[in-house]
């Protein structure tokens, strides 16, 4: 005799598989929005470097700024 639970599980599995195939990656020619500078983690590399330097110099913390130093800002 067929268990209703098993039938439901089968249906759920089918639904999951069917919806999983709807997941689509962004195609290479659709990356215009992702290529915008304001979408970058660090839109301005120079400013990011300066901020990072100030951060680890003032905080004297590692690995926050990723560099060694004692807080003098001279390294």
């Amino acid at each position, binding site marked *: 005799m067929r268990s209703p639970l098993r039938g439901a599980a089968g249906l759920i599995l*089918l639904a999951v*598989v*069917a919806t999983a*195939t709807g997941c689509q990656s962004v*195609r*290479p020619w659709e*990356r*215009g929005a992702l290529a915008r500078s304001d979408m970058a983690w660090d839109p301005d590399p120079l400013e990011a470097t300066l901020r990072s330097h100030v951060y680890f110099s003032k905080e004297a913390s590692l690995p926050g700024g990723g560099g060694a130093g004692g807080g003098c800002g001279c390294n």
Partner: protein
Amino acid sequence: MTGSRSSDAKPLRRRTLAVACALLVLCASPAGALKPGDRAPVFSAKALEGGASISLSQYRGKVVYLDFWASWCAPCAAALPALDALRQEFPEDQFRVLAVNVDRDPKLARQFLARRPVGYPSASDPEGDLPARFEVETMPTSFLIDRQGVIRHVHRGFVRDDVDDLRRRIQQLVAEGR
């Protein structure tokens, strides 16, 4: 009772899994880009600058370098002047460069070309139908197509050092038809 339930359930589970696998296979996107030896899909598309549409068939009998580019793609920006220079090294009746722009907003591409003009035509495909048909895997991607419309080389990405290799390949194809 219990025994009959488990014996019924096994084939059911197998059948469900088989259907699930079949769905995955059927619905998965097709893999495998166009490769050398494949025939280039024939197309006709709107010209970026307006006017008559551009079709690949109008270049039949010439070696064609088909370049997919976008204004937001940095290597594409490096490729455009290099391809324009390469185009001028060969006679027009032997070798042509043809581009397909894939910007969602063609106005951005026109603004880009106003700043960095090139002497070869661009088709505009904001919907991305052509890169899908050519199965473009990265930006930029270019196809070197021989006089019979067969893809002979697929070039993915672009750095300036690629020009020598491209020139050699074009020379070889141009010489084939003589």
